[in-house]
């Protein structure tokens, strides 16, 4: 059986600048794969490359089929949800409308049931149901971004620094929710984080990115235990 996602020799960049120099990695179904690295290493670009938001060369296979070179909306329609950096919620629209957009491509009858599932995961969003998303706190917006992505019923969820700019308590809450998501569904998660400690706690497998190249990969537990890696790459 092919991996949920596999990248082979993935290059990407902006205009003339090359940012990714041939990445090889896989994401398995139902697990969490962490993509770590310093600021500017190319983590965000990697997620954008998967979603078809930047120009790429090399191969990206989703459930064994090439998706590189396809339009972003087609990639989303195949079941890849993306919580981008900066969250990407629709600020001018209400929480309810953001939910509806999350489920935009779905034609099944379980959308309402999924709304209720999201309300259970994120009770604060239910309280803010008719509020403009731009008026939510940073933590609530991140929750909305995650809910919006999950409402696509993705097979693969790409998350770009969900802890960014949030208070420790909120980060704790969000990672708690992600643990639940991981237990309750078969979705595979590719998690980008600068907060390596947090990400490695949640992840099964991890890749370490340095200036557009993968320098280390392995089971998350091993990387966490390796003091040399921690000191030289993860900075804690």
């Amino acid at each position, binding site marked *: 059986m092919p991996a949920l996602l596999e990248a082979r020799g993935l290059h990407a960049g902006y205009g003339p600048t090359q940012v990714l120099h041939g990445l090889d990695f896989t994401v398995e179904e139902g697990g969490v794969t962490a993509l770590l690295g310093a600021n500017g290493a190319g983590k965000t670009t990697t997620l954008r490359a998967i979603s078809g938001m930047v120009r790429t060369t090399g191969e990206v296979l989703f459930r064994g089929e090439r998706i590189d070179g396809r339009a972003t909306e087609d990639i989303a329609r195949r079941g890849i949800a993306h919580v981008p950096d900066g969250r*990407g919620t629709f600020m001018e629209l209400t929480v309810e409308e953001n939910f509806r957009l999350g489920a935009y491509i779905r034609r099944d009858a379980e959308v309402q049931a999924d709304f209720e599932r999201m309300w259970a995961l994120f009770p604060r969003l239910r309280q803010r149901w008719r509020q403009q998303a731009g008026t939510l706190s940073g933590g609530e917006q991140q929750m909305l971004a995650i809910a919006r992505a999950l409402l696509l019923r993705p097979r693969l969820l790409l998350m770009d620094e969900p802890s960014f700019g949030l208070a420790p308590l909120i980060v704790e809450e969000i990672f708690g929710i992600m643990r639940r998501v991981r237990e309750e569904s078969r979705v595979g998660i590719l998690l980008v984080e600068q907060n390596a400690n947090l990400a490695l706690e949640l992840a099964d497998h991890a890749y370490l990115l340095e200036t557009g190249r993968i320098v280390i990969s392995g089971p998350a537990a091993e990387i966490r235990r390796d003091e040399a890696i921690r000191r030289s790459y993860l900075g804690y």
Partner: protein
Amino acid sequence: MEALAHQIIAGIATGGIYASLALALVMIYQATHHVNFAQGEMATLSTFIALSFIQAGMPYWVAFFATIAVSFLIGVAVERLLMRPVQNAPVLTHVGVFIGLLLIIGNLTGWVFGYTTKMFPTPFESDQPLFGGLVSAHQLGSTAVTLAVLLLVYLFFRHTKLGLAMRAAAYNPRSARLVGIRVGWMLALGWGLAAAIGAVAGMMIAPVVFLDPTMMLGILLYAFAGALLGGIDNPMGAVLGGFAVGVLENLAGAYVVGTELKLTVALIIIIGVLVIRPSGLFGRVVLSRV
């Protein structure tokens, strides 16, 4: 007193036309951040198409809806064939394309339909004076049509999935793609809708100002003034702005500057808004916290 009421009612009737066109301008502005200077010419072309349908023997309302459908398709085609190739080009390219579009459609209309001024029928006639002669049947009917269009557009954007997707694509195209919305097509649909709204405005104003290839020139200026007054990125504001400009124009024409200088009112409003409050009276205030 009665004369004043008369002027205000006339102002509301033409204001509805400005409001529709202002809405058409805003819809495209929100999605592309460009003002479609050719909106008026597109509406004029639609009105000529309506006239040829009527002359070919179609009943008025059949011609009316057929024109809306054809105009919608023209709008979609303009976006797909002309605007899409330049969507990432610099601003000046866009201005050039819009002006080119304006000239092409204007000349095409003149070439196909001729430059002589033509009568355009109204479906609203009455044997008795309405409300003691205060309002004409056409004013009443065209205002009702305009309000119906505005209401339908509102309901479409508020309460349908497609309307929501179009708003999402206009506000935030990147995120819209990430939820699977085909942003390019939403843009084309927006052009189609704007062209359809413009067509209705053209058919409603033509019986009043008569039909010739330059019919919409002044009207678009008023509509643009209305859109700016209300806020070029706020549909509701633009609609209110359109009505306000209609009333102001009529009152100023009757009591202040005379009919010859009426168009100056539009220019003064445009310049005034740009200088004093560029976001318009109801310019979008996005509440946001970080």
